[in-house]
């Protein structure tokens, strides 16, 4: 899906916890998600930290949209999302 959107000229930032798979299928702007059942956030965090984490993930996705990339490129949110 991501690739069809890009083919149409729309830059796509894809947030996924399965980023190695996303790289393999050759999507271009890939944002590291937290985990498969909750890519945008972490339910084990207190609510306010969870919301901040989500904001950082979305902010990273927007940065990815602003970035010139040549091929599959991984963008990591600026927090420790791997626990």
């Amino acid at each position: 899906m991501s690739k069809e959107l890009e083919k149409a000229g729309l830059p796509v930032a894809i947030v996924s916890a399965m980023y190695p798979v996303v790289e393999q299928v050759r999507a271009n702007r890939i944002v590291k998600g937290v985990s498969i059942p909750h890519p945008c956030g972490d339910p084990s965090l207190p609510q306010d930290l969870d919301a901040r984490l989500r904001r950082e993930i979305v902010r990273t996705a927007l940065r990815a949209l602003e970035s010139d990339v040549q091929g599959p490129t991984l963008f990591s949110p600026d927090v420790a999302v791997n626990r």
Partner: protein
Amino acid sequence: MITVLHVVNQFFAGLGGEEKAGLPVAVNDGAAGAARGLQLQLGDQATIACTISYGDNYFHEHKEQALQAILEAVQSRHAPLLVAGPAFNSGRYGLSCIEICRAVADALDISCVTAMHEENPAIGTYRDLGDARIYCLPTTETAAGMTDALQRMAHFILRLARGESIGPAQREGYIARGIRRLEKAERPGADRAIDMLLKKIAGEPFATEIPMEAWEPVSPAPPLTQLRDRKLAIVTTSGVVPWGNPDRFKTYRNTHWQKYNIAEVKELEPGKWEAVHGGYNVVYMNRNPHYGVPLDALRALEAEGVIGPGKLYPAYYVIPGNQGSPAVMRRVGQEIAADLKKDGVEGVLLVAT
């Protein structure tokens, strides 16, 4: 004696090149053109009952009539096998070969054998079909490899016609269709996996049992400048939909997408939305749908001015991605892209579970 039918385009039937590409379907008894070469390879073990030819353009411009005429010819000869091509790297020819095989296999339930270069654009269609009755053998890019192609086709045809069982693509040499069959292995999976791992660690060659599909790259769309002025939209495969699943998405293999209004919505309240998806545990998503549609964060960024006022598209797009076939997801991607472009969206945030 085994009887087969051979379908070729006007060029390989010996009728002429591009100037004859408009020729309609014609049926000639016996082997003509490339079919003669195939007959030579089949020897006295099989006979080509007739050669069916068609113009490359005619086929694509009059597909229904062309397929109908070919089906009638095949049906009247009661052949147990159809052969099409080889098409090498010709896109038009390759695609017609695959479409003829599909029509014949569907209508008459007989095996079909074709051949072409692995980079022929029709290979995508062949893989998407994944029809166990259709086999495509790899060839060289050009007709320079004709003799070799016909030789291998003949060998394959004879095996099929004798009712021999055909094993997996890797072993038998046809182009993989992505079909998986159950088979009894001599050693359990854990043993085989550990063997593979040890070889990998030792830097020795090993063969995977599940090769990954090679995906074509897509040139990245140009980046967004002045993000604040750009219209953005959310797309998700998480399966987050309004509570009650009004459009009856299934938990797997969906074929259609929907978009849901978020124009006046500040945040997705639990209990008003739910996740329909059979591929992950939806408990967290149901408690907080922002894990799949991060609307709270987007609204916050809107308030901060990172995203311009009114620049977040007033609906989000969704299809639960579980077990979606690549062909369906490609079509869905194209449809969503067309809808987004129609409304002037310039960039997409896609959340995939």
